[in-house]
C-alpha cells in the first residue's frame, strides 16, 4: 500500500510542555508558544529592512519562558552564537515584544583589559526600572548586591527579562553573579538571558565552568543561535545581484557579514574588515603574525608552515585559535569565515604580503611532493609571472583530471594573464585546454573565443594535424554557440586537411565528430556514412580508444534515428566500457546521451534513471553545461508524463542568467514551462514559448519543434486553427528533411489537426501515426503504455461517448482545463446529459484515493477532534465537515468513525516502519 500523507493546515500544539525545561532550542525550529497560538513565520519575514529570519522558534520559546516566569517559574537562558550571528538583534527583538507586558533590563560586558567588576549589574542598577541600587563595593560584599537583585526579581508583579550580553568578556564577580542567580532563578519571576560568543571560549575559559555548573539545572535553557541557511541568505539577497550559494559560502551564513555585504554592495565591506581586525588586534603580535600567515594561504595552512612564516611558537598558535578567529582542523589552521580571511589578507601592507607569498613558495618547494595548486596560487599573489607559467597550467591539468573544472579554468586563466611570457605554441595549447574547461562550465562564448585564437595560430603554421584537432573542437564550440553552419564548415575543413595526411587515427576522429554533427541535425544517411569511414580508419590504425568512440556515436545515431532498443543497449555497453577504462567523463557523457536521446524517443524510465545519475555526478564535477541540459530534459519529460508541478519547478531552476551559455538548456526548459501553461490554460504561455524560440534562434530542429508545437497547440485550444501551418512552417520543413520519427510524428500531428495534411507523414512515430490514421483506441493504448496521459486523452477525445468521458477524467486529473472544456462543450452539443462536473481538490497518490482536504480531515479525526472542532480548525462549515467525514468513511470502507481512525492509525504505523504491509 502507498503512503498515507497526513497533513494539518495549521501548526499543532506547542512542542514544548510547561514542565520540560532543559531543552535545547535551535534557530530554525518552528516551535510555537502554547499561549500565543500563532504561526510566527509570517511575522518574522515582515520586511527586508528589519527582518529576523529563522529566529521564530527561538523567540517563541523565549517568550514562552517569560510567560511562565510571570506565573512564578523563572529560568536562565544561556544563548550562544558566533560573533556576528545576531544575538544582539535577537535580544532587541525579544525586548521589543516583551516590553508591553514585562520589564526589560539590559546590561553588557566589555572587552576591557581591566574590566570594571560587575559592570553589567552597575549598568542595570542605574536603570530607573531596577529596584536595586549599585552599592559602593569597597564597602559591602558583592553578595549583598546579589541578594538585592534576587529580591527584586522575586518581588515584581510583571515578569522581568534581565539580559546580560557578551558574557565571554565577563569579569570574575559577574561570573559569580551568574552562578548565584542561576541556582535561584527558578523561584523568581524573571528570565535571565545571557549571550556569549561560543567561538571565543577556549577550553579553559572560566565561563565554561559556570556553564557546566548550571547546565544540568532544570531551570537552565541552552539556546544556540545558528548561522543562516542558504535559503535565508537567498531570501535576504533576492533583490541583489549576489548568488545566494556563493554569498553563503563566503560568509558561512554569518548574519552580520551577510547584511553588511548586502547593505554596502561591496565584496568586503569596511564594517566587516573593521570588526575582524578589531578582534585580531587584541592578540599579541606573534599571534597576529600567525593569523596573517594563515590569511595568505588558500583554504588552510599547516601548523608547521604557520610557525615558519610567523616566527612564532606553538603557544602563539594556541592563542590564535582560542581567539576564535582561526580554527584548528587537525594539524591545519583555517579561518572560520572566508570573508574574515579576506579581510586580514587585505590588511597586510603590500610589501609584507608579497614577501609572505614568496616565503610560502620557498617553503612549498622545499617539501617532498609539490603542491602545484598552492604554488600556482602563491606565485600569482607574489606577482611572479614566470613561476605562474611554470605551475599554473600543470595545476590546472591536475584539477581537470580530478573533475574540479572550475579550479582548472581558474588556473588556466591565471596562466593566460602571463601570455607574453609564453612561446606561441605553448599559448595556443593553453587556449585549447582552457577552452575544454570553459565548455564544461557552460561558458560557451568564452570557450569559442579561445578556440578561434588558437586556430588562428595553427593556421599560420604548417602542422595540419594540430590545426585539424583544433577544428574538431571548434566545430563543437560553434554548434554550442548556435552557429550551425560554422560548425559544419569547421569539421568539413578538418576532414579535408586530414585527407592523405597519413594519420588514420586523426581522420577517424574527424569523421566521428562529423557523424556527431549529422546526428545533431537528425540526418541518418550522412551520419552512417561518416561512421563507416570512422570505423574503417580506426580498425586500420588499431586505435581502440577511437573504436570505442565510434561505438558511442553509432549507438547514439541508432537511438535517435534507428532502432531505439538497439541504441539503448549500445549506449549502456559503451558506458560500462568507458568506466572500466577509467574514462569517467566520457562515461558520464554517454549516460547523458542516454538521458536526452532516450527522452526524445520517449523511453522514459531509462532516460530518467540516466539523467539522475549524470546530474549527480555533474554537480560534483562542476559540469555545468551537462547539468543544465540534463535538468531541462527532466523538465521536458516531467511535462510529457503529466507531472506538471515538477516540470515547472525544474524548469525554473534552469532558466536564469544565461548570457554566454549554450542555448539548448534554456530553450528546452522554457519550452517545457510554456507547454505546461498552454495545457493548464495559465497566463504567460505564449510569452514563455516565444522566448524559448527566440533564445533558440540558432538551434537545431530537435530543440525547436517542441516549443513550436506548444504554440500550435495553443492556437488549437483557442480556436485559431488557421494560424497553425504558419506557426509550424519552419520546423515542418526541417522535420520532413530530417530523420526523426518523433519530430515527424508530433509536428505532423498538429499540421493534421489544422487540416493542412490528410494523414501521417512517412516514418512518423507510431502513436501519432495511429491517431492520424483514425485509430484512436490503439493510439490511446500506446500512449498509455508509453506514459503520456495528455496525448492519451487527446486520442480518447476522438472516440465515442465513453472514451470522451474517460478523456475528461484524465484531463481533469491533470488540471488540463482548456482541453477538458473543449470536450465538455462537444458532449453538450451531442446532447449527452451526465457530464462530470469538474476537478475536485487534486487527489494525491494515497492509497484510499482521498483528496487533500479529506486527508486533512482524517488527520484531525485521528487527533480526536469532533466535527465542530474540525470545522473551526479548517474554517469550513460544520455541514461541509460532515460531508467530508462521510466521504472519508466511505473511501476507507469503515462503518464507524472509530473504525476509520483505527485504520488510519495502523496505516500510519506501517508508514513509519511498524507492522506488515497488506
Amino acid at each position, binding site marked *: 500500500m502507498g503512503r498515507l500523507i497526513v497533513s494539518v*493546515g495549521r501548526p499543532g500544539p506547542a512542542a514544548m510542555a510547561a514542565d520540560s525545561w532543559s531543552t535545547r532550542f535551535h534557530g530554525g525550529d518552528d516551535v510555537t508558544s502554547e499561549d500565543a497560538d500563532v504561526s510566527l513565520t509570517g511575522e518574522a519575514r515582515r520586511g527586508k529592512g528589519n527582518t529576523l529570519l529563522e529566529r521564530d522558534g527561538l523567540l517563541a520559546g523565549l517568550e514562552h519562558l517569560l510567560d511562565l516566569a510571570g506565573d512564578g517559574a523563572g529560568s536562565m537562558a544561556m544563548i550562544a552564537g558566533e560573533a556576528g550571528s545576531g544575538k544582539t538583534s535577537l535580544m532587541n527583538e525579544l525586548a521589543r515584544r516583551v516590553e508591553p507586558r514585562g520589564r526589560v533590563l539590559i546590561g553588557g560586558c566589555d572587552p576591557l583589559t581591566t574590566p570594571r567588576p560587575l559592570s553589567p549589574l552597575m549598568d542595570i542598577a542605574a536603570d530607573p526600572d531596577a529596584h536595586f541600587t549599585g552599592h559602593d563595593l569597597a564597602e559591602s560584599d558583592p553578595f549583598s548586591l546579589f541578594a538585592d537583585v534576587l529580591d527584586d526579581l522575586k518581588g515584581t508583579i510583571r515578569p522581568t527579562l534581565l539580559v546580560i550580553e557578551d558574557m565571554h568578556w565577563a569579569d570574575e564577580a559577574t561570573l559569580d553573579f551568574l552562578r548565584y542567580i542561576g541556582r535561584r532563578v527558578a523561584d523568581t519571576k524573571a528570565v535571565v538571558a545571557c549571550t556569549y560568543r561560543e567561538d571565543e571560549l577556549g577550553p579553559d575559559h572560566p565561563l565554561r565552568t559556570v556553564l557546566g555548573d548550571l547546565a544540568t539545572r532544570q531551570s537552565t535553557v541552552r539556546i544556540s543561535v545558528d548561522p543562516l541557511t542558504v535559503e535565508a541568505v537567498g531570501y535576504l539577497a533576492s533583490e541583489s545581484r549576489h548568488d545566494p550559494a556563493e554569498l553563503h559560502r563566503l560568509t558561512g551564513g554569518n548574519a552580520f557579514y551577510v547584511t553588511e555585504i548586502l547593505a554596502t554592495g561591496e565584496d568586503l565591506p569596511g564594517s566587516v574588515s573593521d570588526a575582524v581586525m578589531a578582534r585580531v588586534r587584541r592578540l599579541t603580535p606573534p599571534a597576529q603574525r600567525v593569523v596573517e600567515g594563515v590569511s595568505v594561504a588558500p583554504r588552510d595552512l599547516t601548523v608547521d608552515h604557520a610557525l615558519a612564516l610567523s616566527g612564532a611558537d606553538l603557544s602563539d598558535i594556541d592563542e590564535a585559535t582560542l581567539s576564535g578567529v582561526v580554527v584548528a582542523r587537525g594539524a591545519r589552521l583555517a579561518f572560520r569565515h572566508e570573508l574574515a580571511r579576506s579581510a586580514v589578507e587585505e590588511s597586510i601592507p603590500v610589501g609584507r604580503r608579497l614577501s609572505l607569498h614568496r616565503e610560502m613558495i620557498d617553503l612549498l618547494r622545499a617539501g617532498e611532493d609539490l603542491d602545484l595548486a598552492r604554488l600556482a596560487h602563491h606565485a600569482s599573489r607574489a606577482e611572479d609571472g614566470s613561476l605562474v607559467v611554470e605551475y599554473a597550467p600543470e595545476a590546472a591539468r591536475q584539477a581537470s583530471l580530478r573533475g574540479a573544472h572550475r579550479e582548472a579554468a581558474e588556473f588556466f586563466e591565471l596562466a593566460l594573464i602571463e601570455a607574453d611570457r609564453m612561446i606561441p605554441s605553448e599559448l595556443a595549447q593553453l587556449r585549447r585546454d582552457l577552452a575544454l574547461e570553459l565548455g564544461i562550465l557552460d561558458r560557451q562564448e568564452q570557450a569559442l573565443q579561445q578556440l578561434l585564437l588558437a586556430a588562428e595560430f595553427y593556421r599560420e603554421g604548417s602542422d595540419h594535424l594540430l590545426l585539424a584537432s583544433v577544428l574538431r573542437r571548434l566545430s563543437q564550440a560553434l554548434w554550442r554557440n548556435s552557429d550551425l553552419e560554422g560548425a559544419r564548415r569547421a569539421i568539413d575543413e578538418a576532414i579535408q586537411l586530414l585527407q592523405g595526411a597519413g594519420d588514420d587515427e586523426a581522420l577517424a576522429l574527424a569523421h566521428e565528430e562529423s557523424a556527431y554533427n549529422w546526428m545533431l541535425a537528425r540526418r541518418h544517411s550522412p551520419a552512417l556514412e561518416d561512421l563507416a569511414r570512422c570505423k574503417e580508419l580506426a580498425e586500420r590504425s588499431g586505435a581502440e580508444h577511437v573504436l570505442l568512440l565510434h561505438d558511442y556515436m553509432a549507438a547514439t545515431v541508432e537511438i535517435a534515428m534507428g532502432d531505439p532498443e538497439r541504441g539503448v543497449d549500445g549506449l549502456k555497453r559503451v558506458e560500462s566500457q568507458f568506466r572500466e577504462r577509467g574514462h569517467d567523463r566520457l562515461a558520464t557523457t554517454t549516460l547523458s546521451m542516454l538521458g536526452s536521446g532516450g527522452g526524445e524517443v520517449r523511453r522514459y524510465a531509462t532516460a530518467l534513471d540516466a539523467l539522475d545519475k549524470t546530474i549527480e555526478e555533474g554537480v560534483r564535477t562542476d559540469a555545468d553545461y551537462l547539468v543544465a541540459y540534463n535538468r531541462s530534459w527532466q523538465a521536458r519529460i516531467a511535462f510529457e508524463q503529466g507531472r506538471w508541478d515538477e516540470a515547472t519547478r525544474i524548469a525554473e531552476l534552469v532558466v536564469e542568467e544565461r548570457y554566454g551559455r549554450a542555448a539548448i538548456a534554456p530553450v528546452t526548459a522554457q519550452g517545457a514551462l510554456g507547454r505546461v501553461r498552454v495545457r493548464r490554460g495559465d497566463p504567460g504561455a505564449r510569452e514563455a514559448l516565444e522566448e524559448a524560440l527566440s533564445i533558440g534562434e540558432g538551434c537545431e530542429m530537435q530543440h525547436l519543434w517542441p516549443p513550436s508545437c506548444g504554440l500550435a497547440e495553443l492556437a488549437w485550444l483557442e480556436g485559431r486553427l488557421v494560424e497553425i501551418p504558419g506557426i509550424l512552417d519552419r520546423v515542418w520543413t526541417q522535420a520532413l528533411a530530417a530523420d526523426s520519427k518523433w519530430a515527424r510524428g508530433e509536428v505532423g500531428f498538429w499540421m493534421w489537426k489544422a487540416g493542412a495534411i490528410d494523414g501521417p507523414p512517412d516514418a512518423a512515430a507510431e502513436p501519432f501515426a495511429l491517431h492520424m490514421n483514425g485509430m484512436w483506441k490503439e493510439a490511446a493504448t500506446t500512449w498509455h503504455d508509453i506514459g503520456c496521459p495528455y496525448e492519451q486523452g487527446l486520442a480518447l477525445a476522438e472516440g465515442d461517448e465513453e472514451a470522451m468521458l474517460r478523456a475528461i477524467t484524465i484531463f481533469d486529473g491533470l488540471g488540463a482545463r482548456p482541453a477538458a472544456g473543449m470536450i465538455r462543450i462537444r458532449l453538450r452539443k451531442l446532447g449527452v446529459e451526465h457530464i462530470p462536473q469538474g476537478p475536485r481538490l487534486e487527489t494525491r497518490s494515497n492509497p484510499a484515493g482521498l483528496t487533500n482536504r479529506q486527508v486533512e480531515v482524517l488527520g484531525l479525526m485521528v487527533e480526536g477532534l469532533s466535527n465542530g472542532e474540525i470545522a473551526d480548525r479548517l474554517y469550513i462549515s460544520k455541514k461541509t465537515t460532515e460531508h467530508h467525514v462521510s466521504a472519508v468513511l466511505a473511501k476507507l470502507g469503515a462503518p464507524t468513525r472509530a473504525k476509520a481512525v483505527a485504520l488510519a492509525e495502523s496505516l500510519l504505523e506501517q508508514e513509519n516502519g511498524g507492522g506488515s504491509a497488506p
Partner: protein
Amino acid sequence: MPRYVVERTFEGGLEIPTDPTGFNAMMGVVGNNAKEQVTWVQSFVSADKTRTYCIYDGPSPEAIRRAAELNSMPVDVISEVRVLDPYFYLGTGS
C-alpha cells in the same frame, strides 16, 4: 510583478471566523505566500460563499499554484490582469 486573478471553488462554502483563530489562519496564509514571493491583495467572495475571486501579485502562475498548495487551497483559473478604473480616463474626454 504581474497581477493575477485567481478563481477558486469551495464546495460547501468558505467559512472564516472573525476572531483570533480566523486572524491566525489569515496570517498563516500570508506567511506561506511569502515563501513564494506571492502577495494576497484582496478577495471577492460570491454570495453563497462557494466561489472566490482573489487578487494576487506574484512572479509567475507557478508561484501562485505552489502558494495555494501550501495553504491547501483550490485553484480553478488563473488570469493575468491589469487594473482598469473609471478615474484613469478623467481628463481624457471633452
